[in-house]
């Protein structure tokens, strides 16, 4: 078994974004999706600090520090882009106009609850940013994260132990091992990387996992 690299994960997420979609990519891992969007699709990226039609990072030396993304990295604007203020930007998000947002996560529960803003440690400084707005605002909230923590702990769980970002908001999870739908019946594996069995994946998943893969008629 070969875990997917971060680039492979980004490419896998990108493959599911349809032509014409309006998408917000959260800070961290999801930002990488911007670099691997299919060239034959027009996908319009929203960044909550006030830009619809975000382009890739500028060439070195071409940075404009008035033109940044939510992660405060310099970006570019594409033809057809529009700028707006923060209340308008979050109205766009919270009003349900974005098709997809892709977020990182600490934990996702089988009900689709998301924990991605706070580890719950007593000395942690809380910082939420736009995570709670994004999680409830887009038509679909997708998660992109490692399947388990570095220490092997479950991130797909029955109940989140970390403080929640939002309840029942996640519809799909892309991990380095699998693509998992969150359904009313809980987690359903739609794809598993080659060399990993459903049973092995289940052991790395902290809640009941169903097998939703379409079997080829062999």
């Amino acid at each position, binding site marked *: 078994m070969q875990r997917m690299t971060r680039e492979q994960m980004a490419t896998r997420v990108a493959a599911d974004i349809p032509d014409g979609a309006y998408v917000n990519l959260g800070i961290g891992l999801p930002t990488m999706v911007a670099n691997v969007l299919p060239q034959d699709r027009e996908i319009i990226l929203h960044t909550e600090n006030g830009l619809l039609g975000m382009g890739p990072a500028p060439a070195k030396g071409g940075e404009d520090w008035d033109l*940044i993304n939510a992660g405060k990295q310099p970006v570019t604007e594409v033809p057809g882009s529009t700028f707006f203020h923060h209340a308008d930007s979050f109205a766009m998000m919270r009003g349900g106009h974005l098709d997809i947002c892709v977020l990182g996560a600490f934990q996702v529960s089988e009900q689709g609850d998301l924990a991605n803003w706070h580890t719950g440690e007593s000395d942690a400084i*809380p910082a*939420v940013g736009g995570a709670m707005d994004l999680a*409830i605002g887009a038509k679909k909230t997708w998660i992109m994260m490692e399947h388990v923590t570095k220490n092997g702990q479950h991130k797909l769980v029955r109940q989140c132990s970390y403080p929640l970002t939002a309840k029942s908001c996640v519809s799909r999870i892309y991990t380095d091992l699998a693509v998992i739908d969150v359904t009313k019946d809980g987690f359903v594996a739609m794809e598993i990387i080659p060399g990993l069995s459903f049973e092995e994946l289940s052991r790395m998943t902290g809640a009941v996992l169903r097998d939703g893969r379409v079997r080829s008629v062999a």
Partner: protein
Amino acid sequence: MINKIVESIEAAVADIQDGSTILVGGFGTAGMPFNLVDALIAQGARDLTIVSNNAGNGEIGLAALLKAKRVRKIICSFPRQTDSWVFDGLYRAGEIELEVVPQGNLAERMRAAGAGIGAFFCPTGHGTLLAGERETRVIDGRNHVLEYPIHGDVALIKAHKADRWGNLVYRKTARNFAPVMATAARITIAEVSEIVELGGLDPEAVPTPGIYVQRVVRVESKLAKVP
């Protein structure tokens, strides 16, 4: 004749009172009114409540204001950043009060203050720590939390160009919170890179009409990234 242009930045911030609530524009360093914040540090007002998206970067701007121990409380969405060591230190030492607000609520609560909305129901944060003891209600089958306006005594913002009526235009994502904060404060003070003649801005493209701005001061923009 209306002339909101103030000759010196010292004059622009001279009457800011101890204990004020100050809305400070910017998302990270983009749109951060560095010159006005420096002037506020020099002016000396203390016991301030600051409302801003972040809690300062490096040692300049808001971070410098925090370091000078002028801030009692900060209301923001994302204090913790790689370069927020000044805030982090004060927070861990218990020397500053923190209220974390989801970014969309931060913007919408200031918009409500400017728009005469007494309170609003919104799904963001329901069922989370940040909803706290707030009133909730199910509307159309969905859980909502009741949120109240955030008013400022003063807003310090940065814009690109202004005219003497206080009309402001911005550059790219440096716009961010500024137009919203301008509506939510009793006194809005803008630092700008350029002053144009009245009529020099396209009337179809002014995110901040001058009615929301009390003072404008021209400065050299500090565009560079924090070192």
